[in-house]
């Protein structure tokens, strides 16, 4: 157990800052998919490593919460360990690796394989919140495009992929339309996870620290991946099951075993993989 840090407020941020972030989150929930600017603070972790997610977690966490932190789907990756330790230290909350036990799940690049339930909150770390950014780098122009629903260029990008590669060549951070109104960046989750966002019973909050934006997908909201009628959205699949648990329905990571280049494919979601193995063992 970590020693609680007494020199800092509960969950590091001061209460005024937390209120400011909560007001932003309320606005974000009220207008699903709309990016809300907020006064992001300097955090003791580097920008790009989850400062947005950490601020959102700090703003919504209470002493009774049970926190799970994953990076690439795994609880044991270095950044996940580091962020979990940060909250254990600054908030003294209980932590877990079990998806179903968690009230708050902070994530980078994955949505857990285990279905989330009503009352849970999934907090995404977001590097670039603007889905139009790589088509139009200027904020003044992208804000106008969102305001006026000028989203044709998003499909131009997909069109170009098909023209060049014969298929949509976007495999992660795959853009979605939220609640029929705003095009949103789902954060760099693999497109495999996109369908899980649709009509999810959990509240999904997104925090971008460096870019100082919040956005949200409230429970049971429509989230549709952009596509063409004759080139429908598809998720990744693998030829072999997970090398550890045998699962055929989870996202698999590629692990290089030796210099000969032998590969092992295993579940990226370590908690899900553990459950499958326990089930198999009886």
């Amino acid at each position, binding site marked *: 157990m970590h020693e609680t840090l007494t020199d800092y407020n509960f969950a590091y941020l001061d209460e005024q800052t937390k209120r400011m972030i909560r007001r932003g989150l309320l606005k974000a929930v009220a207008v699903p998919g709309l990016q809300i600017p907020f006064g992001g603070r300097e955090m003791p972790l580097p920008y790009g490593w989850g400062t947005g997610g950490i601020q959102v977690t700090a703003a919504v966490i209470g002493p009774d919460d049970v926190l799970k932190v994953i990076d690439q789907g795994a609880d044991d990756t270095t950044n996940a360990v580091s962020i979990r330790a940060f909250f254990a230290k600054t908030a003294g909350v209980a932590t877990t690796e079990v998806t179903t036990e968690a009230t708050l799940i902070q994530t980078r690049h994955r949505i857990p394989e285990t279905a989330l339930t009503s009352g849970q909150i999934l907090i995404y770390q977001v590097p670039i919140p603007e889905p139009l950014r790589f088509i139009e780098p200027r904020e003044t122009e992208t804000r*106008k495009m969102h*305001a*006026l629903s*000028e*989203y*044709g*260029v998003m*499909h*131009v990008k997909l*069109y*170009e992929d*098909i*023209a*060049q590669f014969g298929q949509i060549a976007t495999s992660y951070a795959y853009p979605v339309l939220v609640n029929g109104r705003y095009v949103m960046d789902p954060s760099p989750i693999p497109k495999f996870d996109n369908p899980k966002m649709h009509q999810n019973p959990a509240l999904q909050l997104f925090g971008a620290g460096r870019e100082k934006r919040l956005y949200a997908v409230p429970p049971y909201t429509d989230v549709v991946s952009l*596509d*063409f*009628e*004759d*080139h429908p959205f598809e998720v990744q699949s693998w030829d072999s099951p997970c090398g550890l648990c045998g699962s055929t329905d989870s996202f698999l990571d590629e692990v290089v075993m030796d210099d000969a280049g032998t590969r092992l494919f295993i579940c990226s979601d370590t908690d899900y993989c553990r459950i499958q193995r326990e089930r198999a063992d009886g």
Partner: protein
Amino acid sequence: MVEPILSARGLTREYAPEQGCLEVDLDVWPGEVVGIVGESGSGKSTLLRLLSGQERPDAGTLSFTDRAGRQHDLVRVSESAIRQLQRTAFGIVHQNPRDGLRLRISAGGNIGERLMGVGARHYGDIRAQAVHWLSHVEIDPARIDDLPRYFSGGMQQRLQIARNLVTNPGLVFMDEPTGGLDVSVQARLLDTLKRLVHDLGISVVIVTHDMGVARLLADRLLVMRFGRVIETGLTDQVLDDPQAAYTQQLVASILQVS
């Protein structure tokens, strides 16, 4: 009764005394090509930007009737509505293709953008449209996946035109569309433009300082000087029997082509 597609009264946008566009009245009728001529600084480009909603006037009225017969007050219209018109009911062809094309997007993507912007979601259909419009502007459809930066200046301009026409706009604005092109390339582009205008029944407002271009394309001319329209009439009438002394000078400055 036929109504004008675009109607301006007292349209004014003054940057400095006698600079900009002052109290211009203009009607553009369906299927008509209106040429705006004058020298640099006469206010013709400002007028084009006002008419196409790229800029708002200080005073005056401007109304547009779309192909469905709906009237739009272009002075009071919201920015959202004007942008909607600009990418559906209007075409805007810039002098420099760089301003009107996405150079990092293939020719097909450039043509398809407007369709996708208004909700087209069938890749095969969009591509078929792109092929159709490429051949319409006399670009080899085999070049559909090439980037426009590999196109010649004349081809870029043709692509820009195709990109605008794909949504069947009622009104196309062109700002010196043949400027910067070689004479032979210019002549071919003018031929294409003339044919398209005739075949598609679109109205065109074209700004040019080139009287040859004006004579070849325009049905009617507006001559501008110091921000004001100083003479207007049928093209042949204005060019063959200019009334204002300034127009006489302008006409005299070009070679008369039979």
